[in-house]
């Protein structure tokens, strides 16, 4: 049993997109191949990376899927190797300062599709899954750094990496800072509570992923 103590939780947010060239990757066959450098595995979803197979550029048609959140690429067919990411951009991540509570909620709309035929079979509601959504909440001690005030005023999405209880398995998502609430009582510490909402994209692996 691999339960986790809460104090080992790691939660990070992204900085400015940073370019990179000729980055080594590890994999076999058609993939997936993953960037060797862990700190560069969260890719800027607005920058299309390019790849080379033993120094030869790989055409876009040979790419099956790119997981921007874990730095992986899978090809339509087997490659000779070594595979490198010729060009791309990654999101550098830094730990959220003074955080002491964190949660990630995966929600899903549940749509009722019950009709007369289905209901007459067993009189139970029948449902299918609708839109999915993710919410991240972070509670931190206020430090007047204005880091998140700047983010919320800019209104731009950032990347969040959440490792519950210090797990080796991360959840990563692009999210928009919805609220930042600063509060404090006379007998306590000033608190800064943040709520982020998933910002999806035209491909799920551009905006959300998790390690299995």
């Amino acid at each position, binding site marked *: *049993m*691999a339960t986790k103590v*809460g104090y080992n939780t790691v939660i990070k947010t992204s900085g400015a997109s940073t370019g990179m060239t000729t980055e080594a990757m590890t994999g076999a066959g058609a993939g997936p191949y993953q960037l060797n450098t862990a700190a560069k595995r969260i890719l800027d979803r607005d920058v299309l990376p390019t790849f080379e197979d033993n120094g030869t550029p790989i055409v876009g048609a040979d790419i099956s899927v790119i997981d921007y959140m874990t730095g992986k690429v899978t090809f339509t067919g087997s490659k000779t190797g070594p595979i490198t990411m010729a060009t791309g951009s990654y999101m550098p991540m830094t730990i959220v300062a003074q955080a002491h*509570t*964190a949660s990630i909620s995966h929600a*899903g709309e549940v749509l009722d599709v019950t009709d007369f035929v289905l209901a007459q079979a067993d009189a139970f509601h029948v449902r299918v899954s609708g839109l999915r959504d993710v919410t991240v909440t972070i509670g931190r001690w206020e430090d007047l750094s204005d880091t998140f005030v700047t983010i919320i005023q800019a209104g731009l999405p950032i990347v969040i990496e959440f490792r519950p209880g210090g797990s080796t398995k991360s959840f990563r998502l692009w999210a928009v800072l919805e609220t930042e609430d600063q509060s404090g009582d006379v007998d306590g510490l000033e608190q800064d509570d943040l709520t982020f909402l998933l910002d999806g994209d035209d491909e799920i692996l551009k905006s959300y992923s*998790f390690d299995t």
Partner: protein
Amino acid sequence: MATIPAHTKVVDIDSNPLPGNSSSLAHGGEVLDDTNFASAGFHTRLSGLRDWTLQASGPYDDADTATVALSTKWLSGAVIAVEYKPDGTNGFGGNAIISDFTLSGDVDGMETFSLTAEGAGALAAVP
């Protein structure tokens, strides 16, 4: 009287036990009011469509098969096969859709999970 200590409970997700320490199965249903003037001053009712909801929570184990499956099934929108067995063997089961799967933890506590899944069809006795 056959009482059941709750620690014997087993909640299976896709045939794998979920490592929770609290769970509940709510059997519900629509109750349709068909009261009319001839109802002698009392409401009269009929049973409509039935419904059910599973809730579970406990310590988060990132290596647990059932827990890992929850993330995968939530992402794909696929149903999970649920079995709720208060004595570890007998209970109820059916397919459900994950409406909420939350991981949370404070600096001074355990990392925990909570799950809410809504019935996607019939709930039947197991085994």
